[in-house]
């Protein structure tokens, strides 16, 4: 039986070199980070651990009791380190798939297909970026902050949440050298007018020649409007229900505006990271 486990080259196939592996990953830990989210750390050496910021995996979620997830669940990479061979995902426990994933304990295994999709880009002339996210979208943006740091690009992270208990990824952003601005529903600071004022201030201060967002339609639309007005490079990481993750089933399509035309693209294959200017409201 031919298996593609932790191997860059499938054995016995005459030099076929896989670009995506269906890795049997071993659970190192799977702990709650707050009341809703868990962080799973997996031992997944080889191709999986080479994932870049913005790329994702399609994860097999165990069947537990009444929960019988049929498809895998796509999740953006929270961390991937080729040196340690570890891959991490931050996920909200919300449905049959994520409840199954939450049941995994240290030493258990599951299959992760990846790295998949097109990740974030940092053009050479972008020297300081703003990442703006909410909810699990912050997990997608955290590796981007580290990628920016490694290239000497300054990062400001605007972290939006319902209240102080829902704040995610702040330590990751700070560890990557990012300046963090927290905006909350509970004190009204997450209002669009305030977030817009912060973005305009950062741009006026010369701290925003790249805009990146994930996790909120309203925040995306705000950043898109300002990026167009201020002529700032921008990207958005999109979510959509998926089945295969490899561009084959065409279920994860969304509409994009490209040169004035509405075009359907596959989030898993053409993205999940897209030009901010092409995104449409979801």
């Amino acid at each position, binding site marked *: *039986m*031919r*298996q*593609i486990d932790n191997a860059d080259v*499938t054995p016995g*196939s*005459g030099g*076929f070199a*896989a*670009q*995506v*592996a*269906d890795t049997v990953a071993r659970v190192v830990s799977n702990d709650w980070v707050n009341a809703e989210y868990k962080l799973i750390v997996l031992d997944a050496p080889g191709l999986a651990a080479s994932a870049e910021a913005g790329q994702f995996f399609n994860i*097999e979620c165990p069947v537990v009791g009444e929960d*019988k*997830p*049929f*498809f*895998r669940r796509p999740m953006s990479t929270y961390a991937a380190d080729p040196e340690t061979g570890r891959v991490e995902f931050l996920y909200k426990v919300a449905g*049959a798939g994520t409840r199954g994933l939450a049941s995994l304990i240290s030493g258990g295994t599951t*299959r992760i*297909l990846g790295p998949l999709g097109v990740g974030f880009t940092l053009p050479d002339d972008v020297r300081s970026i703003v990442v703006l996210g909410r909810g699990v979208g912050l997990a997608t943006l955290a590796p981007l902050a580290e990628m920016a740091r490694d290239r000497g690009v300054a990062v400001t992270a605007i972290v939006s949440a319902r209240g102080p208990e829902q704040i995610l990824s702040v330590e990751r952003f700070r560890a990557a050298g990012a300046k963090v601005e927290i905006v909350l529903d509970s004190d009204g600071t997450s209002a669009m007018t305030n977030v817009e004022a912060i973005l305009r201030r950062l741009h006026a201060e010369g701290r925003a020649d790249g805009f990146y967002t994930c996790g909120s339609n309203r925040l995306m639309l705000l950043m898109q409007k300002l990026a167009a007005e201020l002529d700032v490079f921008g990207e958005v990481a999109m979510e*959509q*229900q998926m*089945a*295969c993750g*490899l*561009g*084959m*089933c*065409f*279920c994860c*399509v*969304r509409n994009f505006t490209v040169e004035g035309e509405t075009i*359907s693209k596959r989030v898993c*294959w053409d993205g999940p990271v897209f030009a901010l200017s092409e995104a449409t409201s979801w």
Partner: protein
Amino acid sequence: MVDLKVDMGRGLVLANPVMPASGTFAEGLAKVVDLNGLGALVTKTITAELRGGNPTPRVAEVGNGMLNSIGIPSKGIDQFLDEALPFYRRFSSPLIVSISAPTVDDFGRAAARLNVEGIAGIEANISCPNIEEDGKAFAMRPQTTEQAVSAMRKVTDLPLWAKLTPNTGDIASVARAAEAAGADGLVVANTILAMTIDIETMRPTLGNVMGGLSGPAVKPIALRMTYQCARAVDIPVIGCGGIASAEDAVEFLLAGARAVQVGTATFTRPGTMDEVIAGITEYCRRKGFNAVAELGAALNADMLAPDVMEAAQ
């Protein structure tokens, strides 16, 4: 050494009997699986006209299966010939191009455009709506099946497979009609028309209301239809429906299928086809078969006459 070759007729011999089901395979699988190891490659369905596909949500999970209403998005035959075909020509596995059309004449016109180097055969998706017959799928009835297959047979010498729909009351008669019209093989079968409703929102789960059911949930039905068709015709039958393991594939081969297609399983385990090929080989070795082609005559059953079998439904 088990001989995995299967003869599909009209000069088409596959290195092994395992191939993707149309709609579940595209260029992306080449990143994970060595496509040269597959018996054939079967494209997503291509239409002459541009098609955007159905509104989202396009898929839903059901118990042990998948409901989809993708809607055959297609960039047209020109784009396929210019952009996709060169990609597939990099691989040694024979390329079967799935086509569909809204009328009998359009099926003929589409088939005529595929007499091109690099295309090894045509799979006609006649499970789609016929706009001249009130939207009923061509393969729901023998007469419209015969008309569509005849229109293609007139214009191509390529191996021509008809993909039948399970949404018919008499699949054996449809199979015989396709054979009589000159089909070289039958793919049995497409998805089963189905629907689900979200009782909280009180809306159909799919954007298109109804869709096609596939995956392990449909396997016994597809297997029964494969058996009925294999007994009804002399041309090869390609079994398709819920195959997720070598054991599943062997069931279809024992039921009389010459080859099998793996579809939905590739979405959940992209390496499934490789595992099926290896597992069929192992099964033949364990059971003492020298060639996979021997499985077609190996079923132990007190055979019912086909007409009795159909009446039993």
